[in-house]
């Protein structure tokens, strides 16, 4: 019995908890991508670097707060900085819309032109981030580190395997739930939110109904910037901030959005968790886990790991390909095929 409980605790500690946190971060990122896709109808390659830009704003403001002695008690100061960072990041994104995307919207350009333009924006954002904060790792987490430490858990339960939950993981999940609830409330209950859904559904009819496209687009960008900043900050708190990592997050984030069905917010969230759980389940080494469940004299040679963590990107990629092969509209139906 103890062995089974230990095995479960082991899984919870190394698979379940990290996957929930990582899945929440991917879900928030994918939501940003999917909302831009739903309204503006292109895949925004600059989203990863928008996350980096927003996170950089959070970090700079956090440092500034720290230098003034402002803190958030046991919680990271970054949470206090977040709203300000969202405002700054939104400003950047709105400027990028004004000087880049608006022109192509007026022209009714092909989606792939937007895609190339977003690559240009990606370069610029990436350049800004590296120029201001540099390409290196930045750690900006402060406050308490753990909600439950593995040692305490062991003491409380008497098991030999502990479960530790980091504050950053707890914050990630709580923030994700709050943000998603707010977003769905906004999209389903408010006039502006409904007009965004209408615009995404049928642009011409939305115009006929008197919906102001400029306002819809501006609100979309602000939401995308906010989601990017939140997702980026949470990821940075949980792991660490490095501009290039954020570019690499583009693949799992897009995979999550496509798996869920591009343009479908619910799908993006589901997709985020599908990708996160697959990535961690496939790259987890089951040696110790098997040790608990198998008979005493049975001993695994090797790590019993399906795939080395070096290839965690391959997991998103394979899932992406499978979805494109078998169900190109995603698990939930998206707007784009």
């Amino acid at each position, binding site marked *: 019995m103890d062995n089974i409980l230990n095995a479960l605790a082991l899984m919870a500690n190394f698979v379940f908890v990290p996957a929930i946190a990582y899945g929440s971060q991917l879900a928030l990122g994918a939501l940003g991508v999917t909302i831009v*896709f739903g309204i503006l109808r*292109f*895949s925004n*390659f600059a989203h990863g670097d928008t996350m980096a830009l927003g996170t950089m704003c959070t970090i700079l403001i956090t440092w500034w707060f720290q230098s003034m002695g402002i803190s958030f008690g046991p919680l990271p100061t970054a949470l206090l900085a977040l709203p300000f960072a969202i405002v700054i990041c939104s400003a950047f994104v709105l400027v990028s819309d004004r000087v*880049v995307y608006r*022109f192509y919207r007026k022209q009714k350009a092909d*989606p*792939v*032109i937007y*895609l*190339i*333009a977003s*690559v*240009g*924006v*990606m*370069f*610029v*954002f*990436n*350049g*800004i981030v*590296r*120029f*201001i904060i*540099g*390409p290196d790792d930045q750690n900006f987490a402060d406050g308490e580190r753990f909600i439950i430490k593995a040692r305490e858990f062991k003491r409380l339960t008497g098991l030999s395997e502990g479960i530790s939950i980091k504050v950053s993981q707890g914050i990630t999940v709580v923030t994700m739930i709050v943000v998603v609830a707010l977003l769905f409330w906004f999209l389903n209950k408010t006039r502006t939110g409904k007009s965004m859904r209408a615009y995404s559904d049928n642009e011409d009819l939305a115009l006929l109904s008197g919906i102001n496209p400029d306002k819809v687009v501006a609100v979309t960008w602000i939401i995308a910037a906010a989601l990017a900043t939140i997702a980026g900050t949470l990821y940075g708190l949980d792991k660490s901030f490095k501009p290039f990592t954020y*570019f*690499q997050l*583009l*693949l799992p984030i*897009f*995979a999550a959005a*496509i798996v869920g069905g*591009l343009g479908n917010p619910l799908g993006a969230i589901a997709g985020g968790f599908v990708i996160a759980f697959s990535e961690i389940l496939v790259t987890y080494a089951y040696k110790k886990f098997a040790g608990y469940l198998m008979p005493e004299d049975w001993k695994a040679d*090797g790590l019993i790991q*399906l795939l*080395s963590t*070096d*290839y965690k*990107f*391959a997991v*998103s*990629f394979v899932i*992406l*390909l499978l979805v*494109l*092969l078998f169900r*190109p509209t995603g698990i939930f139906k998206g707007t*784009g*095929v």
Partner: protein
Amino acid sequence: MFNRNVLYFAIMLGLIVLVGQTQSWNVALTITNLCIISAVMALGVNIQWGYAGLFNVGIMGFAAMGGLAAMIISVSPVQEAWSAGGVGVLVSLVLAAITIVAAVFTYRALEGKSFRLLALFIVVLAGSWAVRAFLDPATAAIEKVNPASTGYLGGLGLPIILAWPVGGIFAGAAAWVVGKITLGLRADYLAIATLGISEIIVAVLKHEDWLTRGVKNVTGLPRPVPYEVDLQQTQWFLDLCAQLGANPVTFSSIFVKLCYMVLFASVLLIILWFSEKALRSPWGRMMRAIRDNEVSASAMGKNIKSRHLQVFVLGSIVVGIAGAMLTTLDGQLTPSTYQPLRFTFLIWVMVIVGGSGNNWGAVLGGFVIWFFWIEAEPLGLWLMELITSGMAEDSALRAHLIESAAHMRLMTMGIILLLALRFSPRGLIPERN
């Protein structure tokens, strides 16, 4: 119109000569060689984007396939490693092939059955377990063989020039797999999928030490051209130097670069010639017709997906050739240098700035953008020093600005891309109708 195009190339030549005169001819030739390789890559991307409107964001991966080919073809085999784990690797490769065949067979045979996916999953799982059972011990054994200098299987020990077409084939094969799955869907999906495959290819190069030594790099790839030290001891070369009144040490390095240049330029010209032929052939006209109006082209009974697959594979082959050439020039395979900004997005800037749909435009774009990519760093540094010249010597801001100048070129490239896309969407040398 034609005169203006000649003028562009003349200006480009002038810039290179200027670098030769002011910096050094060595630098000028280095830039030129990389310009030529960039031009070949841009040609490959232009085949995909300009001819067919396919958006490939995985150029890095296809170039890396070329690099891998260069290493595998040229390096001599490591006998000890082969005897340690060669059989295991070969067996696992055969098993992998069997698994794929079995998976495809299972999938086809169980059409319409409810347990189709489950069966497929079991076949793949069993297959991968079998592969790992042979591959893991084999690679572990290989990597133990003298890890400081080898620890990998080595290559075939053939002339490195052979690697150029082989690199094309490697890249083409990877492109075929991705294209088979994602072509025919939205352009966005192709973009994401190619981004993914390129990350994975580079991850394999970085982490499969038994194959590529990973981040330990494979250095000292044999050259297709003479070595400087050998030249400096060859009589005819010394005579030539005496005749020209040149320093044998400097001139040997220039001479080697000139040899490379001749090789690269021949490849560029051959590919350019084929590209131009293809563009003007009925095939090229059909490709452009499909690009401009997929609906009517498919109404005329053209099989768009298979045409797109053709052009996607062809373009990737050209990128693979360029990737092999680049590794040949570097003389080493360094997986960690494969960065998407440098290998994917920079090439895109070349194609967009040069003129999508026009081969000469792509070549010009390759030259211009590579030139500025290299020269942006000294220019940026100079600019930053100018801006900060008013600040105190020890100012932290000044130090930061000068230190960050290197990152300016990312921003510059982004701005160039955006400006070109907006104000000159047809590029420096537009497509001819």
